[in-house]
């Protein structure tokens, strides 16, 4: 972890990060509950434990930047500003969802937020990000592309092709690897000969560093520095954000591959606890502040659930739309 120490720039900064992370935690916990109530169906991958990554990264990116996410992307979408009610409606499969209910949990899209989707196919987002960045470069846009992917994705060919293309063409793309140590039930060292993901990127002559993904300040600072360099024409960069998923891989995972004690040890240094403790210790927030933010997050989730509950279903006759353009050339 070679990043210099980073910290809160003041009360408002600390509150904003805490708010962002509490919103995601409250949202994910409610999703878990709604899954049990069969309101949300199908495949569901929760982001608990990894909130500092999405919140720190999104804060350091510009509104004009393009974002490519994974299938564990509720946190990315919320931190990016995709409205929570539309994310919840998407999980419900309702027409008011951010993808009309077509995609569900793993396929959140929002053109207004330049959120180019969750993606259920491991590593499939990386080449798309390379293309987005190439277009940004050719069109001389000031924006960059940020691409999230898991540690499991580095085994796919797309990862390697994408890193090479990005470096070869000096593209404005920031690769953000969320290394939560497991791909489904498989620990990284069972599938990678070189487990140092930053080292792999350096093999492609890409600037790379590992960052404590449980520390939102470290994430924000590292992404900010990398984004500034990329915007300045330095070419692509990769950050390996070391984090941990607190919940199961999906809703069908008995978690036989890890000990409870390991999960508990990570929970003790969880991103929310660490942040809250630090902000209090530095006298920037009080317990009342924390409670208020928690209550606000919970109220926002309540409203999102109410929105999703009352949202309409897409008319079945419309389901054939958007396979092709509505107007042929």
């Amino acid at each position: 972890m070679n990043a210099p120490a980073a910290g809160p720039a003041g009360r408002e900064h600390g509150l904003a990060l805490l708010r962002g992370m509490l919103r995601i935690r409250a949202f994910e916990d409610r999703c878990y509950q709604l899954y049990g109530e069969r309101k949300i169906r199908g495949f569901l991958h929760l982001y608990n434990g990894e909130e500092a990554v999405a919140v720190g990264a999104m804060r350091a990116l510009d509104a004009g930047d393009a974002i490519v996410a994974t299938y564990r992307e509720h946190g990315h979408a919320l931190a990016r500003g995709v409205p929570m009610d539309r994310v919840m409606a998407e999980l419900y499969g309702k027409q008011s969802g951010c993808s009309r209910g077509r995609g569900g949990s793993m396929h959140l899209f929002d053109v207004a937020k330049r959120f180019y989707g969750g993606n259920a196919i491991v590593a499939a987002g990386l080449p798309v990000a390379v293309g987005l960045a190439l277009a940004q470069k050719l069109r001389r846009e000031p924006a960059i592309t940020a691409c999230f992917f898991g540690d499991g994705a580095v085994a796919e060919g797309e990862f390697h092709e994408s890193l090479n293309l990005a470096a070869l063409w000096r593209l404005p793309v920031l690769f953000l690897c969320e290394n939560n140590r497991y791909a489904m039930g498989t620990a990284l060292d069972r599938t990678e000969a070189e487990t140092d993901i930053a080292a792999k990127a350096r093999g492609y002559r890409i600037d790379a560093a590992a960052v404590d993904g449980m520390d939102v300040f470290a994430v924000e600072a590292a992404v900010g520095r990398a984004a500034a360099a990329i915007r300045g024409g330095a070419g692509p960069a990769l950050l390996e954000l070391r984090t941990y998923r607190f919940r199961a891989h999906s809703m069908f995972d008995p978690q036989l591959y890890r000990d409870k004690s390991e999960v508990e040890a990570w929970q003790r240094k969880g991103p929310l606890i660490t942040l809250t403790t630090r902000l209090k210790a530095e006298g920037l927030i009080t317990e009342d502040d924390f409670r208020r933010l928690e209550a606000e997050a919970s109220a926002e989730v309540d409203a999102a659930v109410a929105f999703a509950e009352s949202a309409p279903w897409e008319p079945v006759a419309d389901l054939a739309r958007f396979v092709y353009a509505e107007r042929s050339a």
Partner: protein
Amino acid sequence: MAQMNMTQALNSAMDVMLGRDPAVVLMGEDIGYFGGVFRVTDGLQRKYGAHRVLDTPIAEGGIVAAAIGMAVNGLRPVAEIQFADYIYPGFDQITSELARLRYRSAGDFYAPVTIRTPCGGGIRGGQTHSQSPEAVFTHVCGLKVLMPSNPYDAKGLLIAAIEDDDPVIFFEPKRLYNGPFDGDPAKPASPWSTHPKGEVPEGHYRVPLGKAEIVRPGRDLTIVSYGTMVHVAAAAASAAGLDAEIVDVRSLVPLDADTICESVRKTGRCVIAHEATRFSGFGAELLSVIQEECFWDLQAPIQRVTGWDTPYPHAFEWEYFPSPARFATAFRTVMEPA
């Protein structure tokens, strides 16, 4: 005989083959240590060791490619692609290498690889966990393509696939792993123990490639189908009060045109059913073969019951899924008096 669901029957097939043939090696994502996301390989790594049941990285291209090399060099790899929806990163290796090696080397080299992969909807998998891409593979010459509809066939066909000297794409309709499914998601699931094909021999046996099965004889019409739709078709026909002859294709390539056409010649009416999208689906091939062979015996135009020509919508799975109601429409058309 033992009672087995489809998961257990497939597991038993691999268990038998690992035990009989030291050349058989399993490989795939999360199949060993974890036992597979559908538990199909559960316990096999413990029993046979990590050198026989290999956990691989998430690299479908690499999995297929390595299997080809292994097979050329004397092994019989059985590769799992976790969902059929993830097979595409391996598609180049499957079409350009695996399917063509024998032809390209004029018979000098061949690769007896079996690729197992769960397919189909019915478990709320949405767009990226529900696909039925069998026609993508039946269109590639050099590949054999199988899709069982019950535990007995699943085990016998998988053993035959592993022992076959050609590459086989083996589709497992995931909705059928735990029980037959008649197309009504509101009804409580029935287990395989209620179905005669849940009786499975514990040892070695084969269901031959290239043999369709008449799962139910009948006089009114022929329904040609495979996978989950075999069960839905049977339920739909009985709900419509029709004495349907139901042909389970099982082996798409090689295709048993004789059994299919003999049935259609007898009934003079035919409905073809699959869960995959309609346009250029495998039903189009079936329809062509039947038309070529049985035209003068047909009493009505052949009908197809299929999925929509769209991705599997997340929230409307049961509207996409070829329902008994969709069958009823096809039955009305095909049963019109000539």
